[in-house]
């Protein structure tokens, strides 16, 4: 994920971060800088540190009456000369930005917004991408809500970490303040706020975690849920929570912001809250369908892109595909074909850029490079093609796109409680998604959208809205959070889209097996402790119980490694070499220990002298490892706070690795598979699903029992990140789950019974001795 960057270069959580991130080059904000390309940031803060005394009596806001201000008043205060929030003189740059801000579509409706905001507790606000809602609405609120007058804050949530960080930086610039002071942000493992902070951008997950300790969110006078249409798990839970908090706290203002038109659903959910809509800056988009369904959507997409390049007038192309591999492959093919077109048909030059979440940020920036110029004077104009996942759908704005090619698929998380598998699967998008994609073509001028399916298929086969994340997720973690939030009746918790009863049943069961919930459904001490960790319950339980196995240091590292993206890099061009390098770290007992070996090597002096080079040579992701390092720091702090001992078994001890594997079982005993007597396949315990070991594993197929981190669904069922374990451990460490009377008869039960008998015999002989 792109959003891991910051934590990587930020070993300390509270370092103010001004100037080290150029917002103009930020993909999430690029659309704001159309007119300011000439301006530079990083300077221009002179004088702002002087004359600030914390009292507001002399600021431009002194005659403001809370919840009774007007747009004109705010306008005047914004015009300076001093900063209305800290009374320092305003910089030139501030006034430059102010000009562009006032051109944003939301600005025309500032008074209208204030009128509604003042009249109601909950407001639904609809503004299309590019309307300026994310940066401007929180500022409009500040001028009316005046949180600093009574020691409160305004919170604005974002589904993505990068968005929270970059928007905060942008707004700090707009308000001419230092990031981390009046305006700050808070994301998992990183908090950049201070005592002066009055506007806090944060991920929705962070606000939820805060609510766990402060059920009424008393720190805040106004909460803005941005990008609510994305319906992330945390946003959905927050909405349910805020509905209850709103009753307990009539003084709390709530704004729900959405970019799409299903806003009526939000209105209904919030007891017919009033709605304000602001149009975006969009042009008409002509939509084309194929006459017949496509046999191969990737091939059809490539053909369409090349056809556009050959026949359509100037304008950039955005192609939506599903994942990294598919995108890289498509980019290669388009480039090859285009080169031929240039040689043979005198086509214009074509630049192809990939765009997906795991792409390093500097490569993501490239999508904002202008299209290439004509190859020679008077030649055909150049064009750029961006081949991206659905992160190009709403979250970032790329200008110059005139043509959108939409094959109609995206990778979506699915979870099914019946086979307990959470996986990313290529699935058809929704109608709403298709409309969003088409809309991308109309940012700059009238555009065209080529849908690679028939109109009938669009109408009949696509669902209306993408399923919200809550319907596609394992809810174990969410249930733990809700319990911590003080919500006891989970069955009747008022969610916008309640999940299937089975999903809740599974989550409760899992938490019960993990001993986080007792049989009455109440939080246990372990459960309370586990909820302190921003981790999945299985990981948290493994971490908390690791001192019992004398290896909490190692499990802490491992937990961090399992919480970050893939640390092994395997480029298509050097697969063999990458595999050889991985083999250097391989541990015969499995992938977990292999990862640990990598981490230990990474922390060694040889690697630390030049980590970048070392990682490159060993086909490891520096970003992922640094980020694991950072996560480890954060988790360590929580462990220390919770008084969990950090310890290691002596490396010379023969039980060093065994202890770690046993600790693994303490968290992942529900993710165990046993080898089938017939050969290569494994069967998951209890769910009885046939699985294969993922080809990336270092483990041979001679391990009888394995514990796995992930069940991956593709055309085959795979388990990924596996380590071998002993059946005795399962019976010993998780006796409730491995109570044989709960097993269906079969190979697994027989094998466990045999193990049990063996253990009993051994104990008996011991006793007689």
């Amino acid at each position: 994920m792109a959003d891991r960057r910051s934590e990587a270069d930020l070993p300390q959580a509270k370092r103010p971060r001004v100037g080290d991130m150029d917002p103009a080059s930020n993909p999430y904000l690029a659309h704001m800088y159309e007119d300011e390309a000439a301006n530079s940031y990083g300077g221009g803060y002179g004088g702002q540190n002087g004359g600030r005394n914390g009292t507001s009596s002399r600021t431009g806001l002194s005659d403001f009456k809370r919840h009774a201000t007007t747009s004109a008043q705010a306008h005047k205060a914004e015009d300076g000369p001093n900063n209305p929030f800290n009374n320092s003189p305003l910089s030139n740059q501030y006034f430059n930005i102010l000009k562009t801000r006032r051109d944003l579509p939301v600005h025309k409706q500032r008074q209208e917004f204030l009128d509604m905001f003042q009249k109601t507790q909950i407001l639904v606000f609809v503004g299309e991408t590019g309307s300026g809602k994310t940066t401007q609405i929180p500022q409009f609120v500040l001028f009316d809500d005046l949180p600093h007058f009574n020691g409160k804050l305004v919170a604005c949530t974002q589904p993505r970490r990068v968005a929270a960080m970059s928007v905060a930086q942008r707004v700090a610039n707009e308000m001419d303040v230092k990031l981390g002071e009046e305006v700050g942000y808070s994301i998992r493992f990183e908090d950049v706020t201070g005592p002066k902070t009055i506007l806090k951008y944060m991920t929705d997950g962070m606000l939820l975690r805060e609510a766990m300790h402060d059920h009424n969110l008393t720190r805040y006078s106004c909460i803005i849920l941005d990008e609510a249409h994305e319906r992330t798990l945390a946003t959905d839970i927050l909405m349910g929570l805020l509905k209850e908090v709103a009753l307990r706290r009539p003084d709390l203002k709530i704004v729900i912001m959405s970019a799409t038109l299903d806003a009526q659903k939000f209105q209904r959910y919030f007891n017919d809250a009033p709605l304000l809509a602001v149009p975006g800056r969009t042009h008409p988009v002509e939509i084309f369908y194929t006459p017949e369904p496509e046999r191969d959507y990737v091939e059809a997409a490539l053909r369409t892109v090349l056809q556009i390049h050959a026949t359509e007038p100037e304008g950039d192309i955005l192609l939506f595909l599903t994942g990294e591999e598919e995108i890289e492959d498509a980019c290669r093919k388009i480039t090859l074909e285009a080169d031929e077109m240039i040689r043979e048909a005198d086509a214009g030059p074509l630049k192809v850029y990939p765009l997906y979440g795991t792409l390093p940020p500097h490569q993501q920036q490239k999508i904002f490079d202008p299209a290439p110029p004509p190859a020679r004077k008077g030649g055909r104009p150049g064009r750029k093609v961006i081949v991206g996942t659905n992160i190009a759908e709403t979250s970032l704005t790329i200008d110059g796109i005139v043509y959108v090619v939409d094959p109609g698929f995206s990778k979506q998380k699915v979870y099914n409680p019946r086979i307990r598998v959470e996986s990313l699967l290529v699935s058809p998008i929704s109608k709403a998604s298709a409309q969003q994609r088409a809309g991308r073509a109309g940012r700059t001028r009238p555009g065209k959208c080529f849908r690679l399916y028939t109109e009938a298929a669009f109408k009949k086969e696509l669902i209306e809205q993408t399923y919200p994340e809550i319907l596609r997720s394992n809810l174990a973690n969410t249930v733990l959070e809700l319990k911590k939030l003080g919500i006891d009746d989970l069955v009747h918790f008022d969610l916008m889209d309640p999940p299937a009863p089975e999903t809740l049943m599974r989550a409760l069961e899992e938490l019960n097996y993990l001993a986080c919930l007792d049989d009455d459904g109440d939080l246990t001490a372990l459960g309370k402790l586990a909820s302190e960790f921003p981790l999945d319950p299985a990981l948290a339980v493994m971490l908390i119980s690791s001192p019992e196995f004398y290896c909490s240091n190692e499990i802490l590292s491992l937990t961090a490694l399992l919480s970050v993206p893939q640390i092994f890099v395997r480029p298509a061009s050097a697969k063999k070499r990458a595999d050889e390098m991985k083999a250097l770290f391989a541990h015969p007992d499995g992938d977990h220990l292999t990862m640990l070996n990598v981490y230990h090597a990474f922390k060694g002096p040889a690697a630390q002298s030049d980590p970048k080079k070392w990682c490159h040579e060993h086909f490891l992701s520096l970003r992922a490892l640094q980020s694991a390092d950072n996560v480890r720091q954060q988790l360590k702090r929580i462990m220390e706070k919770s008084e969990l001992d950090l310890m290691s078994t002596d490396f010379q001890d023969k039980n060093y690795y065994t202890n770690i594997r046993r600790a693994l079982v303490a968290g992942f005993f529900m993710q165990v598979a046993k080898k089938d007597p017939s050969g290569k396949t494994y069967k998951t315990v209890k769910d009885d699903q046939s699985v294969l070991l993922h080809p990336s594993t270092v483990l041979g197929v001679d391990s009888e029992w394995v514990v796995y981190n992930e069940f991956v669904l593709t055309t085959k069922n795979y388990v990924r990140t596996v380590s071998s374990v002993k059946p005795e451990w399962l019976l010993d460490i998780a006796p409730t789950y491995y109570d044989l009377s709960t097993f269906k008869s079969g190979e697994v039960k027989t094998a466990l019974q045999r193990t049990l008998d063996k253990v009993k015999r051994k104990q008996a002989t011991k006793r007689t001795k």
Partner: protein
Amino acid sequence: MPAQDPVAADEEIREEEDYMSMIVAEPTIPKVKETYTQRLRRKALESEARGRTKSKAERALEEAAAREDALAKSLLEDENASKSKGLKMMAKMGFKGGALGKKGEDGQGLMDGRLEPVGVVIKEDRGGIGLDNEKKRKIREEFESESKRVKAEEGDYRDRVRRERELAKLEGQVAAAQRVAERLDGEREEEAAGITGDGVPNGSISSKKINTQPLKSINVLWRGLIRGREEKERDRRMRYDLHQSLSRLPTYDDPDEDKDYRQALGKEHTQHVLVEDLEEEDPELDAFNELEPAERLEQLISHLRRDFNYCFWCKFSYPDSELEGCPGLTEEDHD
């Protein structure tokens, strides 16, 4: 499974059907004991099935089937559901089945709430949206039209056979009428030649049917007959020539061959001269052949009656145009 004797089992049931006692009892099927050899064979088969390594495809199929099975079965209906601690906790929260969510007036969850988890569909190829359904639709349509056709055929079979037989009969009658017309026409020409000529009967020549008349001068009603015959003759000769040329080029002229030899080989004399316009298009004839056989027959019959005072059905040339004694124009009239 041990083999069951269905007859024996049936009899068992019948014995129990005692209508007087009116006791509805479960029919007990006696277990036929399998013999030692039977058991041995069954065990062997079973262990063979177990021991065999399954192919990749088989395994993939089984895997998918197991997955689909598990996905189709609600956890709430599982036999272990009553033992589920998760479900017990939910019951404690007031769950009585139905959907989750805000308590409605009846104390239940959302009326239109979700009961089933979102399905898991695994895409195995790169087919575009709508392709699978399009394929299915096409297969279904094909199947439907196929079965429709089969049904239609079954119903019409007798009709069709009858129609075909009638058509064949009519074509036969047309050909017969054409032959009659040709003969009569020929006779008339001979007569005319005999009367107007030098009185030498030249029937022997004409009987050889050396036809040098252009086809277009023949009445269209029976021109088809002659054309067909000419075409057959041409094909025959082409085959013959081809056959000859296999050994010798037809143009090969051997000066040593004497006249008799050449005549014997059929090189000297062409017995049959093909009509000159055989290879030409004949729109008039084509138009005539387009007509229904009944129509052609009718035209031929009326021509025979009118020009030759001949009734095709009576097979008789009447002396005058009154055709006295002929019962009528149609076949039915002659029954």
